């Protein structure tokens, strides 16, 4: 299910929040005839955190603001690197172990820019986009990063 979607008129970027990430569509979103390199980062649900078994995760977002922040990051990246295609997709809702949670994809003429922009975007997304992750352990739940 598509929750929100913004697509620039030039089709350069795909930025959206979804309940399920479809990895099979990603390559099509990143293909460009001038592209020589694509870097794709996929964040996934790990089965443990701080030594404890994780059963599942819940993601909550301040959706309109999250999309605005994702757009800002895309604009920043596009100013720093010659990007041909850009994808930022984050999942919301309940995710189980192994599920993709976030996908960042960059296509550029040369691989260096793709790696750098991809790394920049995932680091910045984690620092600025208002999305919250709750871990379900066997004996409790916990909002990640909430407390020191």
């Amino acid at each position, binding site marked *: 299910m598509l929750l929100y979607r913004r697509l620039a008129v030039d089709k350069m970027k795909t930025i959206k929040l979804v309940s399920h990430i479809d990895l099979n569509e990603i390559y099509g979103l990143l293909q460009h005839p001038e592209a020589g390199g694509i870097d794709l980062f996929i964040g996934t649900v790990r089965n443990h955190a701080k030594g404890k078994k994780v059963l599942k995760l819940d*993601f909550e977002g*301040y959706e309109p603001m999250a999309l605005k922040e994702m757009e800002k990051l895309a604009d920043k990246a596009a100013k720093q690197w010659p990007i041909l295609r850009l994808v930022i997709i984050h999942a919301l809702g309940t995710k189980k172990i192994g599920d993709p949670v976030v996908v960042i994809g960059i296509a550029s003429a040369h691989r260096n820019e793709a790696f750098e922009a991809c790394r920049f975007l995932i680091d910045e*997304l*984690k620092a600025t986009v208002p999305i*919250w992750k709750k871990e379900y352990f066997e004996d409790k739940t916990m909002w990640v*990063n*909430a407390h020191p």
Partner: protein
Amino acid sequence: MQIILFGIAKDIIGAQSLTLPGGHGVQTVHDLKNWLLDQYPAMGNLNSMAIAVDQEYAQDEMNLSENQEIALIPPISGG
């Protein structure tokens, strides 16, 4: 003045959103943070607390008004 809540802030306050009572005296983002910490001391244990106004992160000095969309942003953990 109504505040949208997310994540652990919903658990601490026990609601999806919060309406400040009459006579709250909150004029700026800074005032709002202080008011929240005063009313809900558990907020003081969080790693951070930001305020978004009209879906943008707001500076402490920013003035608040009734017609803005105001949200409390506890420590984020996306990605």
